[in-house]
């Protein structure tokens, strides 16, 4: 069980992942300095979601683990989004 071959992520890959994350960080800072109204929030959250996906896939190894982990993580994220949805339905239609 514990002696199976593990995927080793190269140092170079890690550096590229970090660079991508730093570029996205710079982009989110830059984009929120511009006045876009409600689009600011949407853009900042979209970039945050992309960054989160990169962290989950590469740093947290989901890309290289059994598919089961990805299914579990997706289920929790969907559960969380449903909670937000239901909460806002409650507040909007009181």
């Amino acid at each position, binding site marked *: 069980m514990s002696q199976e071959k593990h995927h080793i992520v190269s140092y170079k890959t890690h550096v590229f992942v970090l660079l991508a994350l730093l570029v996205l960080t710079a982009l989110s800072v830059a984009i929120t300095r511009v006045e876009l109204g409600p689009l*600011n929030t949407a853009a900042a959250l979209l970039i945050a979601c992309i960054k*989160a996906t990169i*962290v989950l896939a590469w740093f947290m190894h989901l890309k290289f683990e059994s598919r089961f982990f990805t299914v579990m993580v997706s289920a*929790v994220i969907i559960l969380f989004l449903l909670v937000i949805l239901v909460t806002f339905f409650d507040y909007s239609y009181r």
Partner: protein
Amino acid sequence: MIEHRDDLASKMGMWLFIFTELLLFGMLFVVYAVYRSMHPEAFKLAGQELDVVLGTLNTVILLISSMTVAMSISAIQKGNKKLALALLTVTLIIAVVFLVNKYFEWGTKVEYGFNPGGAELHQLGHGTILFFGLYFVMTGLHALHILIGIGLFLYVFWQVRKDKIHQTDYIWLENTGLYWHLVDLIWIFLFPLLYLIH
């Protein structure tokens, strides 16, 4: 006495713990979203009080520390103990620097009386009080996680040094890494929501 080991189960257990953490912080994000929708103007103005430079700096160093942990796992897998220890040292230093930055950041806020129950906050509206309450609770809970992370890394560093964690047995390092990336993941959302959106 044969030692029982099941790395996959250990990892699964760690993920289950991470889910509880995601829901813990997730609910705080829900509270933030609801109050923001009720007090959009106050949240916008209050957010402008935060130090974007300090927030960005902390974001950048936390991302770097995530990479160094991930790299230390690769180093252990390749049997490079020295490099793994060096990378863990960098991670530890960054974690401490993050908290030092937070200390100065919070210090400034308290100085201006923006802390819960602070003098300045009393003059301001309900929305501003809510924003700073959420700011202190969310960054505070996050900082507590950084502190716990420092303790975990000290333990893992020690274990690597003593060869208890090595090329064929490194689940402790992997799970500590998962924990640290979770802390990073939460900051990825805290940063734009508190510091950037105006």
